[in-house]
């Protein structure tokens, strides 16, 4: 281990500023040990302390009658009926996934799974939100390959279906891909397990994998930008073991059938340190750890290493002492380590002993209360000017442009990716990836199902973070609605650059403002989340990416609809179309321009349209439904046609909007419904005060567009499916 003196210079290398180090010294009133410096540095890292973001996060609405636990627990918990709760959260594993894509992504999945089953919920679905660099950039292919393999490798083995997600490509992610993983679980409302430790003298029990030297200072790495030395940081990436995770899920859920557990938390970022400090801190008690009792993978691991190791698949529990032996038998049955490594005390201190020495002895209250909180300077982002449709000249026929758009990386079929994820395991997947706007997973033994989605449009957020934040929430709400589900709540994963830059922090604040407005208007609270800052490489930040994960419920799974169009149906467009081309994919991919303001979201109209559409789905009127998002109306129609393998004949749009703007504009708050009787639906919508128009009819094998063009569905599909296999070489 290091021979260096424990001083401000070492503290700086551990990620603590001079001021933060001075504050730690003041709390301790004496010099710090190496282990104590380690504890302060990880607990006060951006990753664990949210020191730059905390003041803004409080703006997000977090309450609704169905919210059982909002932010602050391991995951959010909402009531879904029949005595059940949905437990869910999304979390980033961006930095590790750039350094070592397979393990970075795999352990991201493993970590978020633990956040959910630690609360007593059986995980029933995984989703993800992925952003990669330019496909032409030399490392992108390797990162895509590793991340997809890693997500599949972990999720498939642990036996939780991966049912949905989204992928974008943009050069801003060349040196900093985003891997945001979401897990959704279900638990009885009266069997939710929390992390606040209690009961002086109660045993602190370690279960799961043994502790090794992997991932030391992972949380600190996730709190700094990458320089050219990123490769050298590989040893800070953890290695996943999904087999052990599977055993851990089963053992923990089995133990949770008993009343043995007082408190439980997974050992995630900053491992044993953060789990024990947080559990004791939340419970207002002290904790005394005997590190000699920690199951170890090798000999000679120091106290400092043990406290900071991020070895995976480990949990910390406080048990009722009389139940500890019964608990041990459950873990032995599952062939997992089980060790009593400490006791709850009344000292209010975190004490770690190793080989007869006290290696750390820190008062918990000041460690939490005096954690740094920064009101970082912000630069308010400039609002871009609107781009009038007339200023976007068009040289392309609709069919030609559509064929090209469907083949671009952001719109191309994701089947190549989905086919590497087991989406059917569990035997409850009603709508598989791509079958509907949101995945639909039935709850075992029930007729009800959850609808699940992840959404964000980073190009909108880059142009106008506030509008982008609103849009991300609204689109998630819309995607749930489009299956017939009632949207319940949100988990967010806020990926931004270096918060010490005012323009980055300004974008962060604006995005939160937009999200908060949308959550408020749609009664769609944020119940859990994660902030990932310092997503920069060599000074270049990513696009602001506030990824939204969302959950809705549908009481009868059989009522859920997908996007696949059947023959001989009318297509009805619900919602207002102005022909908004600013920041559209048509503008970027066909016209070669990235400019203008993103499409605004009228939240009142959003809600009215969504509530109307949901009602029609639930009363059985709608055969298929798709929201209009990336690529606009014509892309939405084409996706429905490809999914159902049926043609469509479209009618002309209104005269006052240029054709390309009408068909490719990305105006928000719109749905395409496939119904037997279009005029009746139009009348009903108009009676409800909504814009509605019958735009065409399904049948045949071709898509016929109003400018005279025709293209076969087979040809569209070929264009749509070509990108990924060609890019990845298989």
């Amino acid at each position, binding site marked *: 281990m290091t021979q260096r003196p424990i001083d401000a210079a070492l503290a700086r290398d551990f990620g603590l500023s001079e001021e933060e180090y001075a504050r730690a010294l003041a709390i301790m009133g004496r010099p710090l040990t190496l282990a104590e410096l380690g504890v302060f540095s990880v607990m006060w890292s951006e990753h664990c302390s949210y020191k730059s973001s905390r003041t803004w996060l409080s703006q997000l609405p977090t309450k609704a009658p169905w919210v059982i636990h909002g932010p602050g627990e391991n995951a959010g918990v909402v009531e879904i009926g029949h005595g059940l709760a949905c437990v869910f959260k999304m979390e980033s594993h961006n930095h590790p996934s750039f350094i070592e894509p397979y393990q970075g992504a795999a352990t991201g999945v493993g970590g978020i799974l633990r956040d959910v089953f630690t609360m007593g919920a059986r995980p029933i679905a995984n989703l993800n939100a992925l952003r990669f660099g330019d496909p032409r950039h030399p490392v992108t292919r390797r990162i895509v390959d590793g991340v997809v393999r890693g997500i599949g490798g972990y999720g*498939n*083995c642990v036996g939780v279906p991966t049912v949905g997600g989204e992928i974008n490509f943009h050069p801003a992610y060349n040196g900093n891909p985003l891997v945001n993983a979401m897990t959704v679980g279900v638990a009885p409302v009266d069997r939710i397990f929390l992390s606040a430790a209690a009961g002086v003298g109660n045993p602190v029990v370690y279960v799961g994998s043994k502790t090794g030297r992997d991932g030391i200072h992972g949380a600190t790495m996730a709190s700094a930008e990458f320089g050219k030395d990123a490769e050298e940081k590989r040893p800070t990436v953890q290695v996943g*073991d999904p*087999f052990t995770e599977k055993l851990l899920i089963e053992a923990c859920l089995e133990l949770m059938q008993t009343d043995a557990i007082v408190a439980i938390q997974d050992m995630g970022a900053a491992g044993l340190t953060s789990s024990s400090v947080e559990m004791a801190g939340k419970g207002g008690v002290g904790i005394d750890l005997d590190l000699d009792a920690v199951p170890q993978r090798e000999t000679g691991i120091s106290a400092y290493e043990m406290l900071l190791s991020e070895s995976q698949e480990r949990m910390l529990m406080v048990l009722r002492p009389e139940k500890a032996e019964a608990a041990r038998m459950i873990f032995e049955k599952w062939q997992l380590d089980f060790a009593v490594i400490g006791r709850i005390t009344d000292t209010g201190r975190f004490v770690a002993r190793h080989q007869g020495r006290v290696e750390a002895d820190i008062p918990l209250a000041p460690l939490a209360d005096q954690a740094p909180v920064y009101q970082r300077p912000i630069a308010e982002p400039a609002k871009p000017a609107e781009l009038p449709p007339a200023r976007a000249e068009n040289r392309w026929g609709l069919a030609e442009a559509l064929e090209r758009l469907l083949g671009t990386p952001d719109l191309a079929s994701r089947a190549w990716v989905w*086919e590497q994820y087991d989406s059917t*395991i569990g*035997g409850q997947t009603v709508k598989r990836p791509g079958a509907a706007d949101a995945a639909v997973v*039935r709850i075992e033994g029930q007729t009800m199902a959850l609808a699940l989605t992840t959404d964000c449009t980073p190009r909108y957020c880059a142009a106008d973070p506030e509008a982008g934040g609103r849009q991300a929430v609204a689109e998630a709400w819309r995607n749930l609605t489009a299956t017939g589900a009632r949207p319940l709540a949100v988990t967010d994963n806020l990926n931004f650059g270096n918060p010490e830059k005012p323009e980055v922090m300004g974008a962060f604040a604006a995005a939160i403002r937009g999200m908060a407005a949308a959550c408020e208007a749609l009664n769609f609270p944020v119940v859990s989340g994660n902030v990932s800052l310092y997503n920069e490489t060599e000074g270049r930040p990513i696009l602001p990416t506030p990824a939204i994960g969302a959950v809705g419920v549908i009481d009868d799974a059989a009522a859920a609809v997908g996007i696949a169009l059947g023959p001989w149906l009318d297509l009805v467009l619900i919602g207002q179309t102005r022909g908004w081309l600013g920041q559209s994919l048509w503008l970027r991919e066909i016209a070669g321009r990235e400019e203008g303001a993103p499409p605004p979201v009228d939240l009142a109209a959003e809600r009215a349209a969504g509530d109307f559409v949901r009602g029609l789905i639930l009363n059985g009127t709608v055969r298929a439904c798709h929201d209009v998002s990336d690529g606009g109306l014509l892309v939405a129609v084409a996706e429905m046609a490809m999914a159902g393998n049926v043609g469509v004949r479209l009618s002309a749009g209104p005269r006052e909007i240029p054709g390309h703007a009408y068909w490719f504009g990305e105006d928000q708050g719109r749905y395409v419904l496939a119904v037997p009787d279009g005029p009746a639906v139009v009348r009903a919508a108009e009676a409800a005060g909504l814009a509605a128009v019958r735009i065409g009819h399904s049948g045949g094998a071709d898509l016929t567009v109003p400018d005279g063009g025709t293209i076969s569905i087979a040809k569209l599909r070929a264009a749509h499916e070509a990108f990924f296999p060609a890019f990845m070489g*298989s």
Partner: protein
Amino acid sequence: MKPGIVLFPGINRERDMAIALERAFGHAPRIVWHTETDLGELDLLVLPGGFSYGDYLRCGAMAAQTPVMGAVRAHAERGGYVLGVCNGFQILTEAGLLPGALLRNAGLRFISADCHLRVERTDTAFTAQWQQGAVFRAPMAHGDGNYFADTATLDRLEGENLVAFRYVTARGEVTPEANRNGSARSIAGIFSPNLRVLGLMPHPEDLVDKLLGGEDGAPLFASLAAA
């Protein structure tokens, strides 16, 4: 017939299998832990899919050495019914209850997609409720489903009519495209010589409910329930 599900650490499709069995048999299967050696009254032992012992050595290799496998082997030798699906099929080949081996998929990637299977014979307890040559859909979800055996073994399997299912197109044709994992002679499943042991890679148990996309897999379980 009394069904039981043999559970090894790392198996993860036991819930799907239990649902399919319960639908067909009208009662829940018994769960047999990998350390058990007394199988009691069970008539049908099902080894479901998953990643037994993480498949860190070779798919199914560790599970094949567990105590319960001695009992499974004795059960098979007595003429009892055994069904191995996915990892279960891999375990049966590793245990020597079925010939051949499952190699990495030809494309070296995990494949989770629906495939079409052709029923090669219907005079068995597993397939009686299908028509000869029937084609049905089933999800596949595996990284190591590429069936391999030496030429003599393949010739024997075909000669003795022990191929249970082949990967085919929706119309029932054997083509290289329909055989996505690269299995020898498009073999998706095989019988033991006494037709009491069946191993297959795809998952009929995940397609037994109209709401989840169809009931294509249901005849397998209905056949067993009626046998």
